[in-house]
């Protein structure tokens, strides 16, 4: 069993202990420490694994055992596949997870003990599921992990289950992602039917046309998980969960699972040319729509959520270029700086007890460390030259340009400007300007929260310089060079930053409103469209089926009983009680029998 297995088994042990032995879970902090320790241990192990991993192209380290055996053969296995892709992703996942868990020790410290235990149990389960997904030797295990992280998402979004909005958000997340998973499951099944297994490489297609179809179906699942328009609607709502959860699941790792799936199954996607074009467009449109929506949000987490959505669109568009490195690298850098941003937002919220940016302001002086760390995240996301986001975005756009997809490229370049704009807006509204009433009471977060943020800030700042070795690991040459596209993106980014600062950083009473379509965007047109589908589509259909079943199908069953009973009632009147009728019946019967004899020819 490879070393990497421990990254699953340790959290699994933690989860099992916390889930089964409820007294331990109910102790609160000890339970939290148990989970956190396993998470940190996982991170360390993941680093060790990454150190030893061979670059892409070398045979992966495999350890499997038969899981689904029938008809005399193994149709699916479970186990671990350690190669460049999984090892690097594993580090990202465990790193962010460990940071978030440590951070939560502070952030969630006011929760009741059982709730805290529950929170950490889910977190452990999440690492199990996510690591299981990352290390999956085949697509079936990947999908299993995929669904289980979805489950964790559901449970963690619904962590404040007593809050009606949290419940709705949790359910919505599963509804939407599982709706997309219809495609995923179909793709999985089709893959099995076509290739007789669940591997993504190492076989030849009996029916070449099916290859692209499988990829397309899988991509439907990706659209749900990675929140591509129009299936992104669950992600902003998912912010109902605790902020660290948003950082881990709904920013850094789980939502990126969709992108990871494409990377992981790259052999399936590589040749699907039409699909790749579609992916580019979908990604670009997602990036644009989400960025615009992010610009008008007043809730700090909502901004970050749309931002995540937008960046996921970036990644997908990048993958659509036909090269995976840019998208994957952007995934990696994004995981760190977006987690940092969320944790920073959490720290802010922790300080002011509100999500609304209108109730913040001037926090730079009250919580300077948080402000500084948040600034790193903001600039990284904005693609400020030298920070990680700059490199990954540059690489990604370069690939898109190289793929010749000019339409998506144009959109992405525009978004490259829009992103710094709305991030600057957030930074200005939260940290600059005059302190609001709530801001005055703000206190800096404890070390246990700041330390993980600081840890995340390091890769968020400098990971870009590792782009070369990252590419090397994945078997791609990459050297940074100034290109027109990169330059354009950089200019757009700086422009966006400046514009944002000009709009929100100067005046004391800068309006939150963007002119124009803000109201429309804020009303959530896509959400409304989905709601309409639910209210006018599925629900009435279900009601009609229910009505049909009760009043027509069951009605007919009852009717058959009714008609029988009714016949019994009606026919009953024949029994008059009059002796003459009895005699008459008997005589008539005898006569009719004889008549029947004549008619039937018996008497002839």
């Amino acid at each position, binding site marked *: 069993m490879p070393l990497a297995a421990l990254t699953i088994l340790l959290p699994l042990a933690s989860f099992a202990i916390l889930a089964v032995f409820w007294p331990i879970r109910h102790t609160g902090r000890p339970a939290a420490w148990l989970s956190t320790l396993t998470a940190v241990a996982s991170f360390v192990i993941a680093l060790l694994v990454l150190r030893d991993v061979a670059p892409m192209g070398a045979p992966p380290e495999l350890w499997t055992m038969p899981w689904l055996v029938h008809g005399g053969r193994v149709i699916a296995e479970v186990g671990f596949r350690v190669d460049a892709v999984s090892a690097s992703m594993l580090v990202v996942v465990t790193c962010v997870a460990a940071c978030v868990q440590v951070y939560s020790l502070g952030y969630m410290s006011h929760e009741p003990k059982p709730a805290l235990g529950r929170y950490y149990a889910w977190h452990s389960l999440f690492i199990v599921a996510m690591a299981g997904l990352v290390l999956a030797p085949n697509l079936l295990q990947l999908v299993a992990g995929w669904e289980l992280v979805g489950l964790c998402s559901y449970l963690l979004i619904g962590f404040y289950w007593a809050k009606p909005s949290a419940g709705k958000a949790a359910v919505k997340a599963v509804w939407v992602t599982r709706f997309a998973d219809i495609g995923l499951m179909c793709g999985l099944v089709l893959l099995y039917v076509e290739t007789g297994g669940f591997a993504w490489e190492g076989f030849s297609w009996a029916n070449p046309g099916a290859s692209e179809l499988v990829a397309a179906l899988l991509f439907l699942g990706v659209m749900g998980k990675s929140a591509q328009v129009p299936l992104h609607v669950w992600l902003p709502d998912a912010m109902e969960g605790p902020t660290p959860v948003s950082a881990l699941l709904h920013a850094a790792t789980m939502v990126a699972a969709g992108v990871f799936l494409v990377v992981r199954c790259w052999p399936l996607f590589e040749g699907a040319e039409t699909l790749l074009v579609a992916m580019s467009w979908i990604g670009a449109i997602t990036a644009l729509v989400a960025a615009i929506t992010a610009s008008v949000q007043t809730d700090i987490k909502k901004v970050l959520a749309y931002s995540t959505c937008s960046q996921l669109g970036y990644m997908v568009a990048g993958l659509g270029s036909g090269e995976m490195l840019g998208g994957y690298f952007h995934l990696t850098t994004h995981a760190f700086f977006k987690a940092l941003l969320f944790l920073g937002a959490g720290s802010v919220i922790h300080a002011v007890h509100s999500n609304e940016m209108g109730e913040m302001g001037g926090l730079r002086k009250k919580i300077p460390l948080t402000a500084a760390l948040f600034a790193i995240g903001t600039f990284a996301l904005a693609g400020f030259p030298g920070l990680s986001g700059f490199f990954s975005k540059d690489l990604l756009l370069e690939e898109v340009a190289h793929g010749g997809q000019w339409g998506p490229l144009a959109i992405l370049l525009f978004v490259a400007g829009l992103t710094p704009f709305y991030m600057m807006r957030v930074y200005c509204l939260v940290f600059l300007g005059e302190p609001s009433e709530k801001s005055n009471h703000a206190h800096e977060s404890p070390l246990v929260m700041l330390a993980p943020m600081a840890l995340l800030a390091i890769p968020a700042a400098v990971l870009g310089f590792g782009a070369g070795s990252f590419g090397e690991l994945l078997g791609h040459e990459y050297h940074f060079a100034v290109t027109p596209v990169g330059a354009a993106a950089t200019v757009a980014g700086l422009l966006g930053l400046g514009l944002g600062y000009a709009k929100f950083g100067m005046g004391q009473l800068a309006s939150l409103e963007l002119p124009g379509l803000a109201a429309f965007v804020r009303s959530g047109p896509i959400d409304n469209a989905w709601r309409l589908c639910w209210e006018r589509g599925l629900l009435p259909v279900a009601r009609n089926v229910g009505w049909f079943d009760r009043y027509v199908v069951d009605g007919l069953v009852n009717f058959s009983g009714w008609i029988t009973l009714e016949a019994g009632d009606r026919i009953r009147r024949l*029994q008059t009680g009059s002796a003459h009728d009895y005699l008459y019946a008997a005589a008539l019967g*005898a006569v009719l029998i004889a008549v029947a*004899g004549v008619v039937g020819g*018996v008497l002839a």
Partner: protein
Amino acid sequence: MAILLVPLLVVALAVIVLVADLVPAGGTSRGLGALTAIGLFAAFVATWFVPSGVAYAAYSNDGFTEAVQRIVLAAGALSALASIDHADEHFPRRQGEYYLLLITSIFGMTLLAGARELVTLLVAFETMGIPQYVLAAMHKNRKTGIEGAVKLYLTGAISAGITMYGASFLVGTAGSTQLAVIAATPPDAMLAFGALLVLAGMGFKLGVVPFHMWVPDVYQSAPAPFVAFLSVAPKAAAVAALVRIAAHAGSSLPGLWAPVVIVLAVITLTVGNLFALPQTNVRRLLAWSGIGHAGFLLIAFAIGTAEAYAAALFYLATYVAGNTGAFFVSEAVGSKVGDEVSGWNGLARRSPGLALAMLLCLLSLGGIPFVAGFWGKLLLFRTTWNAGYHSLVVYGALLSVVGLFYYLKVARAMYVEPAVDPSPIPVGRPTMVAIVLAVAAVVGLGVAPGGFWDAAVQAGTGVELLERPQLAIPEAGSPAVLGDFPLRKEKGARPRQADPGVEGFPFK
């Protein structure tokens, strides 16, 4: 005379009861019932010890006779047992006559079971029927009791007239009263007319629609233990009579009336079950359901093979067990709470034993596994199926399901509804014994039907006239045939029948 042992024993019993009735026994006549029950039981046992053969060319004792007699005698003995309390309570001063008439009726049935000649058959038929008119009127002081009896009488009288008129054509055409001769007579219009009229007349006793209308009224008004008897024994005897008339190798009679009988069966099944649906009176419910059962019996009769006769006998046996049991319980319960189903509410809490007995009997009547009725229906359906009447089986099964509806209605009242009065219902010991015996039969036949089925197959193939070289029929002026001439030396050595399907496994 040994061949006639069973009818003779019954007559002897009648004489004993008649005499015993004259002897004052401490001011009570309860003992008569016990005496009757024991005597009938003795006759029941005696059926195993009677040699096979023909007496006076008028009566033959074969496997079929014995089977019918056992059914009749068992029903009679059980009814007598259950009558003890009832008679003592309701007509203490008519007990002697009551039992005497019961025995006379049974005598007619035992004779009818073996009648192989038309005069004997008709006399036995009336001997069975006429005492029943009186028995039905035993509740002399109840208006309904008299009314039921009159309705029974009138329908019976018109049926007797029709039968006799039909029989006259049979005799006239065949020139003999021997059933074998009648059955062997090539059919022509007159024979067919006579045969159909006889069939119609017999239908009255079976309760076949449209000769059935007396059934619910009499079942509702006559003494319950007698009704238990009336609902089963005459059916057995009437089936026996019809089988005797029809059963002969190459006989054209079954072919003659099979289509008619099938139609009657379907009508009877339908009407019986439909009418039973809305009933709220337990006895009327059982009456209508009994009409439905008669429909099933008719099906077997219409098929007219030895296997079908076996199935009919088996069906009758299960029906006797279930129906007498149900009526005994309804006697015990009904005398306290009335016969309306609503009165039975919560019986399971008041008297769980009675409720369980009733439930088992009802389930048996409904054809539910592990109680007798299931096998009855099953074997009947199988026979019907093998005879090619597939749709009839499906229809019968459908109506069995309808039947469950009303049986379950009673079960529901007993088990689901709460009791108004929680006190247990007192049951006299003899009635209790009768109920236990009936239920034991229901369960016994249900759990271990194998031996009974084998016996029924033997009996079914044992119809004397069936596929058998024609016996010498004494013509007018021929030397008198005196005494008995044995048909077989001993039991079990009977030659195997040509039809392999009736022996052993019957599914080929």
